[in-house]
């Protein structure tokens, strides 16, 4: 299986990665190699094997429903690029 340059551009867009036009071919080749490796894996007969959701054969531990975090807003906002009136500021986004 191989990826077209167009598919590479689309994936980059979804991941918000900036790709120079001359890099497209390069990544198309590399990503196609990865997909070929996965293709090889999918040729293994997995009949009767349950899909694995996690490599560790363990189950999730749960925590009690207790508020354990105190307000650290001042500390958190001291490392933020821009804040005002307690909110974090980002470049304007409107859908």
């Amino acid at each position, binding site marked *: 299986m191989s990826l077209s340059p167009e598919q590479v551009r689309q994936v980059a867009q*979804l991941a*918000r990665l900036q790709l120079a036009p001359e890099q497209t071919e390069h990544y198309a080749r590399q990503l196609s190699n990865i997909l070929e490796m996965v293709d090889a894996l999918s040729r293994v007969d997995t009949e009767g094997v349950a899909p694995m*959701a*996690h490599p*560790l054969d*363990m*189950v*999730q*531990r*749960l*925590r*009690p*429903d*207790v*508020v*354990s*975090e105190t*307000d*650290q*807003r001042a500390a*958190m*906002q001291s490392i933020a690029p*821009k804040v*005002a*009136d*307690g*909110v*974090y*500021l*980002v*470049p*304007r*986004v*409107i*859908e």
Partner: protein
Amino acid sequence: MANDLHHGWEAVIGLEVHCQLMTHSKIFSGAAIQYGAEPNTQACAVDLALPGVLPVLNEDAVKKAVTFGLSVDAKIAERCVFARKHYFYPDLPKGYQISQYELPIVYEGHLDIELENGTTKTIGITRAHLEEDAGKSMHENFSGATGIDLNRAGTPLIEIVSEPDIRSAAEAVAYLKKLHQLVVYLGVCDGNMQEGSFRCDANVSVRKVGAPKFGTRTETKNVNSFRYVEKAIEYEISRQIEVIESGGTIRQETRLFNPDTGETRAMRSKEDANDYRYFPDPDLLPVVCTQDYIDAIRGSLPELPEAKRARFEKDFGLSPYDAKTLTSSRELAAYYEAVVKDSGADAKLCANWVSTDLLAVLNKQGKDINESPISAAALAGLLQRIADKTISGKIAKEVFEAMAAGEGGADDIIKAKGLVQITDESAIIRAIDDVMVKSPEQVAGYRAGKDKLFGFFVGQVMKATQGKANPDAVNRLLKDKLAG
């Protein structure tokens, strides 16, 4: 039916309800989730997605999801898995939302709704999955910037997805109301729609009646009242029929409802629908619900609205209407049961007082049953005074009004206002004699066969005793006296 209004067209509707779980802390962090806190004071390192943080699942969120699942006869997944749903938006700091995709915790349930014509319809519940809420973006008031409040980020939700079994806006509202009542009854959700604790997205498509396939659907987002859901769906059905009848095609897209105009408008196209790139979250292990765990939760389920309604009809002899009214909330039902138990009065009498008089007062004062100016014990005290004939039912209304106005308990008011019923027959006879002396013409008329005048005498005697005479005794003694 609504379908007939659309000339051979039929609507196909599926609803997605986001329901905020009533926990103390977030689903994956120990931050608080109190509504209305100062911005970002309930957003810890996990909620902000600072490097190196890991999610730890809240056991009560799992329990509430299972509780809901059992109440709609759904299956509970023995193993369920959290997945990352990727999209970029500044109020989602991780760049993905932790949700569930292929293996949700709850699946294949159903809810029965009652239609206007009195029949029952079963709406399938495809699934209900656990997920975290996003933060809040504010586009106004920050001079060209967007302000981000992450207090809501990480709030536990279940998203309840219905099958496309709903065929009209009215059915959609019936389903939502039933679901809302259920989650509030269960204590799973506070149901506050204004605060966004219970919000609905509606998937709507139309097709010719009898057509085998569904049409292309649109999704209308975040409609936050029952009335708006009805309006938004009605609008969307009519819009789609118009588009198709005038030769156009429906685009699969997300639309926003505008309550001011009653219209929906396109928000974004759904062409990229499958680009969330879901995959199992490696930070979270599969969640296992054992049969013992599920059975324990099943054993602790409260009595559900329908069962309670049936019991009220059977045990208290209530009409279906009264039983429905009195079980509309768990608190109201508990109030009613306390009144019956404490007063020892007739259950139907209690039902009348609660469903008519009390609800009227609450409505007038804009109060919830929990804030009732008259406690169940106080109302029971009043009904006891009717039962032991201290006061008549009519006087009781007066006492009730005084109680609602905060003038004290029934006994205090009866005493203070001198409302004790006159059962002493000699006193009543004196009043009757007095009335007869003052009304010789009416006495003559009655005796000449004008039976209707009897009501006049009752009225006069009650007036003379300020309504305090026992009505039964008045009737009986008057008949004797007038007979001469």
